[in-house]
């Protein structure tokens, strides 16, 4: 098993914490060499998921982790809340963009951006969303 150290944990309590999550995630993404396009992808997803944690989970935490893999580095973000949980997961993940062009949930957008996506939730038991972004080592490209 690869050791996955938690680089940072950021609380999500107010609107302002969203920008805090963005900054923290951006710093870590820059530190492991993500391109500008990829940084923006990671930060955008983080921002959407943080807003989700705040709005639908009533606040929680964002953990930023790094995992060294064979030819790549994965940046993993774990968003946890102890809110009401998601009843209809399928509905929550439905893509608001490709179908109607209107505003969809940040959840489906984040899932599209991430290389890996995991959602654990149950009614009354809070929600944990994990996304990972993989940055291939330049040498291995």
């Amino acid at each position, binding site marked *: 098993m690869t050791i996955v150290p938690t680089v940072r944990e950021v609380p999500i309590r*107010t*609107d302002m914490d969203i*920008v805090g999550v963005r900054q923290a995630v951006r710093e870590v993404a820059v530190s492991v060499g993500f391109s500008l396009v990829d940084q*923006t*992808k990671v930060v*955008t997803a983080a*921002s*959407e998921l943080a807003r989700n944690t705040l709005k639908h989970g009533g606040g929680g935490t964002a953990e930023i982790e790094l995992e060294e893999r064979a030819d790549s580095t994965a940046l993993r973000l774990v968003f946890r809340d102890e809110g009401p949980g998601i009843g209809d997961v399928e509905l929550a993940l439905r*893509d608001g*963009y*490709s179908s109607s*062009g209107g*505003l*969809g949930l*940040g959840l489906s*957008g984040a899932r*599209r*951006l991430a290389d890996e996506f995991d959602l654990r939730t149950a009614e009354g038991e809070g929600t944990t969303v994990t996304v990972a972004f993989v940055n291939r080592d330049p040498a291995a490209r």
Partner: protein
Amino acid sequence: MTRGDRDRSGEQPSLPAELEHAFRGRRLPARVRRVIVDELGPGASSSDLAEAVRALVEVTREQDRELRWHQSELEQTNAGLLALHAEIDRQRQRNAFLDAVSRASATSLDGVEMLDVVATLLSSREFAERIQVWKATDTGLLCLADPASQPDATTQEALRTREPAQEGAHRLSVPLTAGPHVLGVLDLHRADREFGSDDVSLARGIADRAAVGLRNAIVYEREHELAERLQHAMLPSLTPQAELDLAARYRSATRGVHVGGDWYDVVSRPDGTVVLTVGDVTGHGLDAAVVMGKLQNALHAYALEGHGPATSLRLVHQLLRGWTSSLFATAVVVEVEKATGVMRWASAGHPPPLLESGDGHATYLDAEHAPMLGINFRREIPEHKRQLTPGSSIVLYTDGLVERRTSDIDTGLDRLARAFTGAGTDDLDQRAERVLHSMLGADDHDDDVCLLLCRWTRSA
């Protein structure tokens, strides 16, 4: 209207209320709150300090507005980014789809097969529920899957205008164009979803790719057909004979290169004898066909010159031995004196002729024969003689007719004898058709097939 704007409207709130707002969410000592209410509230003296605080509150209010603007911009930009990625994703899927269409269009140089793969792809990707492909021919549009059906006005419009044509929202026809030529039309039908402008442009992209594949298939087919018909031209057309009925059939292998090395030939000598030859050069393809042409012509010439079956075969064998080619051939030569019904024959490694007497009894003429032509042998080629009874039929054929991978040759020979005697007609052409049908059926056969029938009709 943004939240910042909303703040600007309405009545100016009291200073304590504004301060309260600015402090919202922050723990503030109770006495500080009191000071605010007491010293800055309504009725309090308007000190310079209060003015400073008021200016300060103005600052926080402005900052607050700006912050909200930024928040809003960031949110909007985020949404825009998500939408852009969704768009990129859609574009990527579209490109991948078109790539798949390109690959499907290059799967085969058989136009029908290729268009079938494309149509299957389109329906499996749910681009359309029902797909109909029309091929432009000299006489108009032809539906390959259903030759009886006729193109409707929308299909015709796409052909004429070279532009996509729609009939309602669930039916789209796109022309298959390659350079200056319209090769056909692709009809797309949907059950429920409508064809939008994006779908029309995607359909164009699909049609362009399919048309490239179709053009290649057409060019190939034209050339391929040419090769087949040229080979056909190398085989003789039978000229009607008095006292002798003749019928011949040639079927190319339905798999692989459609040019083979089988032949049949009929030579009429001025003296009233007729020579029948059937042969099979090993292998398929060009080399076999070329050798076939030469052997057939040589055998024809020797027979015409008057040589008997064994001598003709011997001469051809020597000819073949002299060439650098490493191909071999089996052949059978049968000579019939029309006046007497005397039959002479010789075989070099060829399956035995079938002889049906006038009374419907059939036997294989399985007499001694030489090895294959081209193999190193020096002994004489045995020649056999037999008196035909009036109404007798001779059946010459190549192994492709009787050999199957799934059964042994004896089974094939039995089947042929039964098929010929049980054909249920006296017409030789019909018998040839029926024999082919019962021996080959509709299945693919992987060897060429040659069949030559001859009946001596002279009554004794």
